[in-house]
């Protein structure tokens, strides 16, 4: 598993490419997409890139203090990033980042 940056076919540095899965709730602010590609070294980088593309995502993903929004859970390949390195969690090529709203059960 490679993390960080690697060089593409033309020798240029290429960031890790990941798939980001969006919950139904957030698709309207991402042009209706359920899944988008993005790049970055960390989950935070990936989110910044997504917000640049879809500014409507900003308030939904990041709380007022710059950390992950309280009612959002984010998983890197099914592992909750809050128990890894939160937004500093490194991503690898081909990782799937899933964003889900916090819900109850029981």
């Amino acid at each position, binding site marked *: 598993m490679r993390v960080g940056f690697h060089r593409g076919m033309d020798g240029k540095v290429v960031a890790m490419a990941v798939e980001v899965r969006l*919950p*139904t*709730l957030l698709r309207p602010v991402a042009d209706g997409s359920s899944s988008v590609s993005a790049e970055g070294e960390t989950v935070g980088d990936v989110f910044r890139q997504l917000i640049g593309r879809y500014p409507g995502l900003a308030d*939904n993903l990041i709380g007022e203090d710059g950390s992950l*929004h*309280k*009612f*959002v*859970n984010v*998983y890197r390949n*099914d*592992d*909750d990033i*809050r*128990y890894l390195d939160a937004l500093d969690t490194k991503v690898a090529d081909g990782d799937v980042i*899933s964003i*889900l*709203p*916090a*819900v*109850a*059960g*029981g």
Partner: protein
Amino acid sequence: MARFDSVLGLIGDTPLVSIDALAPRPGVHILAKLEGQNPGGSSKDRIALKMVELAERDGSLQPGDTILEPSSGNTGIGLALVAKLRGYRLRVVMPDNVSPERRQLLEIFGAEIVSSPGEEGSNGAIRLAEKLAADDPALRMLFQYGNPANPLAHYEGTGPEILRDCPEVDVFVAGLGTSGTLMGVGRYLKERKPSVQVVAVEPPSGELVQGLRSLEDGFVPPIFDPGVLDRKLIVRPRESIEWVRRLLDECGVFAGISSGAAVAGAVKAAAQLDTGTVVTLLPDAGWKYLSSGAWTDDLDVVAERATRINYW
């Protein structure tokens, strides 16, 4: 001694069974705590009894009162059993898309059911229950999501039972619903054996519940303290059903769908150990899920069904 004055005496002290057939390598052990052996059929019997006992003790519950509770089924069933024997009425607010067996059991156990919209999931049931409780002060909402009696039941019961029966436990894996099991067992185990890792498993509910209006409709149970967890994993319906089948086929354990998810998590945790012991909690048995087709129908069909019907 197997003699009891009341069926409520059967709550807790559930068996811990080896499911090593599913372990990844020799030297790594997995044990499952079978909460389906409780008299109401699930681990929720423990919290139902504890919530009622504490409310009786502090006077907030009086004879003849009506208890109100949002539940996707098992807590409702546990409360129905306790309410029936202790002389209370019970009204359960439940999403209308839970498995039919849960609804049937609640009815025959004597509970009144108020349905909340299935597409709003448990969040919707909580919202509706809060509204009903606000509209009628005579209703007593015990509120499993915020009631300290919930994790307390596991801190005083489930946790000590696990350490008693498996002092060599290295990792505890359980499903995350109200978080009571993880908080109660997790705290108890870490206090007595700080090296124990606590791993939560959850369904991708946000993908199953289509109708959230905004993220502010999201909900984090007040009793939940993320500091108790070391790791949290999503397990999807398809995986849960695969493991529930393997539990029966390879271990003879007939468990509910959320148990399949817990075992999926337990196996992932076990895979990271060279040697060691994982204990996982199976909330209920398979009886309430026969209608899901989990053991009989095509895997993809059941997985799709699980996105519309609440089996967690």
